[in-house]
């Protein structure tokens, strides 16, 4: 069989100015993965090496440079699977592992499980020779900038949600009588359309018919086309 290896670095809104850096990163990962595969004659080692190269690249949203969760922490998932025995290993929600793919590989090779998550996965990785790192070591400027941008977006929505609540909520505002659900959802939709045009496609009347719906929409992270 002709040996081959393909890598990707995520599908999302990559800004123009970073395209060349991303291309350099995937080229390096493909080369290091392919060389590892030819040396060890194993596809498993090839994919692990390729992903490790990308986890160590601070530009990519995995390992060092991972996206920050709502608490401002890096929380990673990783997995590996081989086609001969169809064995798989995965870790989820780990914060103290520099290369989560190595922890996933250990789950596949040294445990009877497929998926370990959270503290258990971190302890398993530490027991198998992956030293725990402080979460702050995994945070990069770029991820922090994205996180702050996301926070501002969420805060602006929450502030406007409370402004809407003051204005339209019958309890807070007695003159706004208990109008029918239909009229209220139209008003709410109008409110979102004027204040959050980019949200209004999601705030369709079927979706936003109560304050809880609006709160739910406002509290979900800014899915501005960002992906995993």
């Amino acid at each position: 069989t002709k040996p081959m290896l393909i890598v990707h670095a995520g599908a999302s809104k990559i800004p123009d100015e970073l395209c060349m850096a991303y291309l350099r990163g995937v080229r390096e990962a493909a080369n290091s993965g392919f060389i590892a595969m030819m040396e060890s004659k194993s596809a498993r080692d090839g994919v692990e090496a390729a992903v490790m190269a990308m986890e160590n690249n601070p530009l990519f949203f995995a390992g060092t440079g991972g996206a920050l969760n709502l608490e401002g922490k890096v929380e990673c998932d990783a997995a590996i699977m081989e086609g001969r025995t169809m064995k798989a290993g995965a870790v989820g929600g780990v914060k103290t592992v520099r290369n989560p793919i190595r922890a996933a590989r250990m789950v596949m090779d040294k445990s009877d499980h497929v998926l370990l998550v959270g503290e258990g996965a971190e302890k398993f990785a530490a027991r198998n020779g992956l030293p725990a790192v402080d979460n702050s070591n995994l945070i990069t400027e770029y991820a922090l900038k994205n996180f702050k941008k996301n926070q501002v977006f969420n805060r602006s929505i929450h502030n406007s949600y409370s402004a809407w609540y003051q204005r339209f909520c019958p309890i807070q505002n007695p003159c706004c009588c208990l109008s029918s659900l239909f009229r209220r959802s139209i008003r709410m939709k109008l409110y979102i359309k004027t204040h959050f045009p980019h949200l209004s496609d999601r705030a369709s009347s079927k979706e936003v018919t109560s304050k809880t719906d609006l709160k739910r929409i406002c509290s979900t992270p800014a899915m501005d086309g960002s992906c995993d």
Partner: protein
Amino acid sequence: SVGAVALDAQGRTAVALSTGGITGKLPGRLGDSALPGCGFYADDNVGTVCCTGHGEMIMRAALAQRIISAISRGERPQKACQEGLDFMRLRLDGYGGVIAISASGGIGLSFSAFRMPWAYRTTDELHYGIEKGD
């Protein structure tokens, strides 16, 4: 997220992927990357697949399993990847990307999101791209 699929000289397949998730995600949220059949799959008799994009939509579409099933029914990897992404976009309004290698060495590489950096390496070739049409 980042991912890799491989086929070695002995005809064995493997897939690996890693992600930091989505900026601003709720603590404790797991995406598709840790779930076999959603974010990834590998079977020497069929091939190997690695997905990226909206984790929640990929999980709900069981995207990797969907593509592997299409390849096992004789579909070419490229078409199987494209159809899987079309399903996710039309049915769930989800966007993402997929890389795949079939057991016979066919290549699948497709994405419905804005961009996806990729690179493909064999013994004597290295191809790479980021835009649609690269």
